[in-house]
């Protein structure tokens, strides 16, 4: 199972912060976490990150893991420094008004698995 970022955008009723030309990318799994230490331990490539953490280390962490898309939850919008970092690294950024729990739930309901399941 995988979703395109177009589908992710619709499911989460998300706004695109940057990366609107890359929405045909696909994701095979998602991870919701505010703890980047956990993300660095569990996430594979083609995994999308959902987080309430809003600092440059979200982008750094995504970069190291080859994560191509990040969703900021609860309507959080990153600052320009963070957006610039994402643009440089071709990472798509979304923001949604849903909470982390709700956003993860919507994606899971749509069939996007977590990392522990056999996708």
């Amino acid at each position, binding site marked *: 199972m995988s979703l395109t970022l177009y589908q992710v955008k619709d499911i989460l009723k998300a706004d695109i912060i940057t990366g609107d030309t890359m929405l045909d990318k696909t994701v095979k799994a998602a991870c919701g976490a505010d703890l980047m*230490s956990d993300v*660095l*331990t569990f996430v594979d*490539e083609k995994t999308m990150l959902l987080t309430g*953490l809003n*600092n440059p*280390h979200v982008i750094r962490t995504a970069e*190291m893991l080859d994560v191509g898309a990040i969703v900021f939850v609860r309507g959080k919008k990153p600052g320009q420094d963070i957006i610039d970092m994402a643009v440089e690294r071709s990472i798509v950024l979304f923001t949604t008004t849903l909470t982390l729990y709700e956003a993860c739930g919507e994606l899971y309901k749509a069939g996007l698995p977590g990392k522990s399941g056999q996708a």
Partner: protein
Amino acid sequence: MRENDKDNIIEISFPVKSGDFVAAGDASSKTKQLLKQIGIDPAIIRRASIACYEAEINLVIHSMGGTLVLLITPVEIIIRTEDIGPGIADIDLAMKEGYTTASDSSRELGFGAGMGLPNMQRCADNVEIVSKLGSGTVLTITIKTGA
């Protein structure tokens, strides 16, 4: 930054400042770019990048400052951090998942969960720590490139 590529060995040093969370990750980012340019296998680059980032973050959070040295040979990638203190009191304890001495400020940034060293071990073929309280720590991460 220092580069030395004689004998097919690349060596680059990056200074890492204590508590500088803005620059933290720069060395790992440059390391990743370099490994990509060289044409290393993407799965190995990923493991090296994660281990390097964890090591760099550790220097920023826990040390009084130091250096991250990247050494690329035809058969392995070595990431070594050398710091000027304070040293690790109990290395076995530091290697345990969940054990941490990190500050609240590093936790607010999403780190300090006590997962760094175990995660480095997971990504690397070998992790070696030599530390002396009061003088400093040398951490050496080796990742074989299989060449």
